[in-house]
Structure formats: structure tokens, C-alpha cells
């Protein structure tokens, strides 16, 4: 006899692990993301009683998919018109980038006898379609692929729930009305389309890694959702170097989570972190992924992962191979000419060529104007001026950085540094 607690835990676990799989497979049958969502919701609701009665099935995902798809077929029978009214465009041609090749007959699907195709790639690419705004892509991915509620997504991105609900509704309407297809893009479009998907996942990760506002530095819920998504993508596209690179980057960065803040929640820089507190399991997995992808063409996530790997391997900040890191940043800048990358590169310049060389580069970036209002530009400049003993200029830069920072932990750190450089 299975206890209620065990069953509840199994349902919660299946929600977390299988939501995207169940929804993606149901959407194919339902012909509508809205109908699919309702049916999947119902299936999870029905699971509690059914599993209490019959025990937790060996494959909860398959049980939930079969149940949700049956409900979808019922809905379709009841509402005959739904099919004609802008159905989700399921492309039945074999996918170029996924292992799933076949068309699944609707009635056979309802029997649940056949293997359920993994449609999560279709779902991810539909959620991250370039015709949707970046904000909508993020919201849809968290909602449909990860199964977060609108309220949870709204809280994560600090917008009112009504705003987030409207955003999700608008995006789903556009998918139906503009006929955004439910398919994995063709080979020729894949690099660009994949980049959008990876950008969305990375955005979820960075929003969690340094919360833009609020009391805590890290939002662990968002970080682990992003890592989960990264793992799913890697399972679905094991040969894409950038997919591997992104997962490695997230693991190697998140490995430092516990060491990044002190007991009082204050920020601890990489330079001062207790490396014994780095998560060795995440580092091992991340390093392994970087090795696996070594022969793939270098992309921006893979090169960033390689930089993170250098830090992870180093015994200390001073004994880090900064020359190699600088070379990797040069490579990264070539692939991705972003002023933020150039700013991060200045840290490697500092370690290889000293603070004056680094400051020259940061000054040039400031004159370029593309980083106006970016808090890390002011903070980097303040740090370099501090190292050069130019106290008053450093203080001015720290004040500017503080005025641009809404994260309480980062503010406290900058205020501490400001107090150090103010001449007494």
C-alpha cells in the first residue's frame, strides 16, 4: 500500500521532471497549446487518486501522457469546431534535428500502446520562436516546458501576475493566429534558432545567478530550472557543441554558489572565495562536458565554459592560467563582439598586463558609450582606480556603481569598498 505522502511526492516529482515531455506530446494531439495545458493539468490532478489506488506507475511520464492525450481527444470530440479554428500547426515531416521521425496516429496515441515521441524540442523551439519577444520566449518556456505557474514566473521576474498572465496569453494567441509551426527548424536555420533557445535558458540562469533586485544574491529556484533545461536540451541534442557548452558553463558557474556569499549574505569575489566550498560534483561534470565538446566548433557558450573551466581547475586566483584565459577572451570577442565581453576581458588584462593596461581598455569602452548605465562598468573602473591608488576617482566610480545597483548584497559590497577608498 502506497502512502498518501509517497504518492504526493511522486506526483510532485513527475511535475518537475516530466511536465515538458507530457505537454509536448499532448500538444501534438490537442492541436492547441491551451487545450494541451488544461488536459495536462487535469492528468496531474487525476494522478493523485489513481496512483493511490493502483500504485505509482513504472513510467509516470507515459501514464500522464496517455491520460492527458485521452482527455485531449475527448475535448476534440466535444468541440468539433476547435480543429478548424486555428489548430496548432504540427509539421508531420520528419524532424531534421530530432531522433523522433514519425507521425503518430491519433487513435494509436490514445491507446498509449506505442512509444510516445519526445516532442520537447518542438515545444522549446516554438516557445523561443524569433517572432515572439524575448520576454515572451522566457515566460512561455518556463510555463510550458518547465511547468511553472504564471504567478511563479511573475515573482521570478518581478512583474505583477496580471502582466505576466497577459504576456503569456498574448504569446499563445500569436502562435495560433500567426501560425507559428510546432516543429524543429530545418538544418539551415538551426544555428540561429538554437542560439535563441540557448539565450533564453542562459537568461533564466543569469537572472537566478545574480538576482537583479531584492535581498538575496542568488535565486536558487531559477538557477536549478535553467540547469534542468540545459540537461533536457543536452539529452535531446547531444551533438550540438553550444548546448553542451551552455550546460557546462552553468554547472561551472553555479559550482561557486556557496562560496560567492559570506555568512551575512555579503558578496565574496572570485579572488577571495574559499575554493574548498566549490561544489566538486558540479565542477567534475562541467569539466567533463567541456572535454567532450573540445572538438566541436567553438561558439560563445563553449568558450565561456572553457574560461570557467580554467577557473575551476586553478588552485588559487593567483595561480590561475591568466594568459590562457586572456587568449580565450580574445577568441570569445571574435565570436561575439559584445562590449560586456570586452569588459570581462579587462579582468584578464589586469592579471596579465597590470591595472593601467586594463584601465586603458575600460576607458576606451566607456568612451564607446555602449555600456552607459551598466553597473559593472563603473564597478570595474572603480576597482582598477583603487588598485592604482587613485582614491578620489575610485570613490566617484564606486558611487556611480552603487547608484546603478538594485541588488542589496552587491550594494553592500560596493559600499564597503567605497569606505576603503575615501581618504580620511
Amino acid at each position, binding site marked *: 500500500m502506497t502512502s498518501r505522502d509517497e504518492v504526493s511526492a511522486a506526483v510532485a516529482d513527475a511535475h518537475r521532471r516530466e511536465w515538458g515531455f507530457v505537454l509536448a506530446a499532448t500538444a501534438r494531439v490537442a492541436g492547441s497549446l491551451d487545450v494541451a495545458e488544461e488536459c495536462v493539468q487535469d492528468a496531474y490532478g487525476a494522478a493523485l487518486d489513481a496512483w493511490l489506488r493502483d500504485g505509482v506507475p513504472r513510467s509516470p511520464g507515459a501514464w500522464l501522457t496517455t491520460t492527458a492525450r485521452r482527455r485531449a481527444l475527448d475535448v476534440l470530440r466535444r468541440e468539433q469546431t476547435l480543429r478548424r*479554428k486555428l489548430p496548432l500547426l504540427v*509539421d508531420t515531416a520528419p524532424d531534421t534535428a530530432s531522433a523522433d521521425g514519425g507521425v503518430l496516429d491519433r487513435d494509436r496515441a490514445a491507446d498509449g500502446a506505442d512509444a510516445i515521441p519526445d516532442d520537447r524540442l518542438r515545444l522549446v523551439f516554438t516557445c523561443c520562436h524569433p*517572432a515572439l519577444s524575448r520576454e515572451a520566449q522566457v515566460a512561455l518556456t518556463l510555463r510550458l516546458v518547465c511547468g511553472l505557474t504564471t504567478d511563479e514566473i511573475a515573482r521570478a521576474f518581478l512583474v505583477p501576475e496580471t502582466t505576466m498572465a497577459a504576456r503569456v496569453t498574448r504569446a499563445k494567441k500569436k502562435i495560433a493566429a500567426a501560425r507559428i*509551426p510546432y516543429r524543429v527548424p530545418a538544418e539551415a536555420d538551426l544555428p540561429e534558432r538554437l542560439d535563441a533557445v540557448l539565450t533564453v535558458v542562459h537568461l533564466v540562469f543569469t537572472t537566478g545567478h545574480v538576482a537583479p533586485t531584492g535581498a538575496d544574491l542568488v535565486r536558487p529556484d531559477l538557477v536549478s530550472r535553467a540547469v534542468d533545461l540545459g540537461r533536457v536540451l543536452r539529452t535531446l541534442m547531444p551533438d550540438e557543441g553550444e548546448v553542451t557548452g551552455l550546460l557546462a558553463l552553468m554547472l561551472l558557474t553555479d559550482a561557486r554558489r556557496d562560496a560567492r556569499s559570506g555568512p551575512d549574505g555579503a558578496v565574496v569575489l572570485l579572488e577571495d572565495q574559499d575554493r574548498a566550498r566549490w561544489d566538486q560534483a558540479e565542477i567534475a561534470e562541467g569539466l567533463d562536458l567541456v572535454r567532450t565538446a573540445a572538438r566541436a566548433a567553438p561558439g560563445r557558450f563553449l568558450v565561456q565554459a572553457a574560461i570557467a573551466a580554467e577557473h575551476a581547475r586553478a588552485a588559487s586566483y593567483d595561480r590561475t592560467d591568466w594568459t590562457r584565459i586572456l587568449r580565450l577572451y580574445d577568441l570569445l570577442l571574435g565570436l561575439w563582439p559584445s562590449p560586456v565581453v570586452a569588459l570581462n576581458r579587462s579582468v584578464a588584462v589586469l592579471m596579465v598586463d597590470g591595472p593601467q593596461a586594463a584601465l586603458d581598455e575600460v576607458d576606451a569602452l566607456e568612451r564607446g558609450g555602449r555600456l552607459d548605465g551598466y553597473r559593472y562598468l563603473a564597478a570595474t573602473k572603480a576597482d582598477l582606480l583603487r588598485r592604482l591608488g587613485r582614491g578620489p576617482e575610485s570613490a566617484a566610480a564606486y558611487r556611480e556603481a552603487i547608484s546603478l545597483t538594485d541588488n542589496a548584497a552587491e550594494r553592500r559590497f560596493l559600499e564597503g569598498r567605497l569606505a576603503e577608498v575615501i581618504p580620511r
Partner: protein
Amino acid sequence: MSEYLILIYESEQAYAEGGEQVYGEVMAAHDRFSHQVPELGGKIVGGKALQPTSTATTVRGDVVTDGPFAETKEALGGYYLVEARDLDHALEIAKLCPARFGGVEVRPLMEFPDE
């Protein structure tokens, strides 16, 4: 197949400055486009070029005023009505649509249940 309207927004100034030669080149590009669409598996259902916004008249309620509905740097100068399989297909077509002094907007047409 679904219907999409491709709205061409371009700078009128650029055409005014470009003269006959530019006009001829653009016409030739539109002629090429009309052949490219069927090659891509789409269909041009209709399309027209508009007279410049200096010829436009706006009516709001009873009030008639000279000029376009909204003053913008790039103005609606023409359109195509096309049939495409889905948005990806429509965007593939739209990328080939000539609009050297601006860009195009792709809008799905409303579909009514009993048409």
C-alpha cells in the same frame, strides 16, 4: 495554406532622391520577387503599390485632414497578399520582398470559422 499580408514600409525621401534609375531597379526587383514566391511554394494572391503619403487624406469621425494617418519616417508604400504554409514560410518569402529603403511587416489575416 494561410494568408499573410506583407506591408512594405520605406522611406519616401530615398525614392524622391533616387530618381529614375532607383525606380527602375526596384521595379525589376519586384518582378523577380513575383517569380521567386511560387518557386518557394508560396503564392501571390494580390499586391499593389501606393501613391506617396503626400496624396493621403485622413478621416477621423467627421473630420477630414490632409496627410497620412500617422507621420512616420518610413511609410506604407505597398503590399502583397500571399499564401504560405505557416509563419516560417511567410517569413522566408518576406525576406525576399524588396524593401531597400526600409522593411516589411508580416501580418496574418483573420480567419473566420464559416468562410
